[in-house]
């Protein structure tokens, strides 16, 4: 498996007495979409946060492109998150005071890209996500489905290698959820980005190439009997 981009091995993390992760392992190959499934409270989001370097596991290793995240400085880790990773959450990730195009441009602005360049790149991405028509509106003025597509555009705007999506359709109805997934998956496949897709919905997981199931903080991976 030379093509492993990101891996977590035997990850453990507790909040107080209860372990949220109790020996979880998974790998993500380049360009691969991996669904992380499992009941609520099983540790899916904690696993995603560890893989993305948002939460430090108490033990176990997260390795991205051959480098262990725990060996990096905070500065390096946040540069990694900004430059190589993109994030889509269930809701609440857009800054309400900014217009949608400003929201999408934000990750580029934070990396020092000039405003004009950042916003024109942002508009291109909004076009691909079919939300360029509402670029100058604010988050509060658009539907949930439109807002999630804007969030996907924002996750993709820096050209990340991995997109971390935590229940990206969790607040949407079936039709809007389907549209978000279709666009997220097709743009990721075009750019070669991998996706870690946390979802408890099988219909959403069906957009993945492979699934990992988390139960009680442990991962289970089963190969299909041919």
């Amino acid at each position: 498996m030379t093509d492993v981009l990101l891996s977590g091995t035997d990850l453990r993390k507790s909040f107080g007495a209860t372990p949220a992760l109790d020996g979880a392992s998974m790998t993500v190959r380049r360009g691969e979409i991996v669904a992380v499934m499992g009941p609520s409270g099983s540790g899916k989001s904690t696993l995603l946060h560890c893989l993305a370097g948002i939460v430090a596991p108490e033990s176990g290793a997260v390795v991205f492109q051959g480098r262990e995240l725990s060996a990096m400085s905070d500065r390096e880790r946040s540069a990694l998150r900004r430059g190589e990773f993109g994030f889509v959450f269930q809701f609440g990730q857009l800054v309400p005071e900014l217009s949608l195009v400003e929201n999408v441009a934000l990750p580029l602005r934070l990396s020092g890209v000039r405003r004009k360049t950042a916003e024109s790149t942002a508009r291109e991405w909004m076009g691909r996500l079919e939300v360029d028509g509402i670029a100058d509106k604010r988050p509060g003025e658009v539907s949930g489905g439109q807002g999630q597509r804007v969030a996907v555009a924002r996750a993709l705007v820096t050209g990340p290698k991995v997109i971390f999506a935590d229940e990206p359709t969790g607040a949407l109805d079936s039709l809007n959820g389907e549209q978000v997934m279709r666009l997220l998956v097709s743009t990721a496949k075009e750019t070669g980005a991998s996706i870690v897709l946390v979802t408890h919905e099988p219909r959403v997981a069906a957009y993945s190439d492979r699934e990992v199931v988390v139960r009680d903080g442990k991962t289970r991976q089963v190969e299909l009997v041919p």
Partner: protein
Amino acid sequence: MSIGHALLGLLETGPRHGYDLKRVYDEHFGHDRPLAYGQVYSTLSRLLRNGLVEESGVEPGGGPERKRYAITDAGVTDVTEWLVTPESPQIYLQSALYTKVVLALMSGRSAEDVLDAQRVAHLKAMRELTARKRDGDLADQLICDHALFHLEADLRWLELTTARLSDLGKQVAS
């Protein structure tokens, strides 16, 4: 649903007479459809012919109801293979899955593995439908949606059953 495999699975816990097999089968799986005696004996004679069961002691008096049947090594291999092979994903297969889960628990195999193998097979079918939907026209999409929602319902049942395995295990053992 394969009655032959269910009977073999029940025989794994020990040799039984035909009438006893029917009783245990009905208790676990016959809620709305108890087995007919004729079905039990015709299935047993097929299993006997195929070497999956053998006679284990005949009580005096003769007649099929006097015979006791035991599973053979070939029978154990056959049940094992059946348990680990997922059902081909289709709508309404809960009775086959339920039978497999109960028999896995009774025989001390991993019921979680049975459920996991099935989940993998279901998700694979759902991925194929999702891909077909992407490339299809509206009619294709509607047809695939219908199948996807039903397979998803099965998957929810698989997940819930996994969460209930330890309770189910206690009930099956009692």
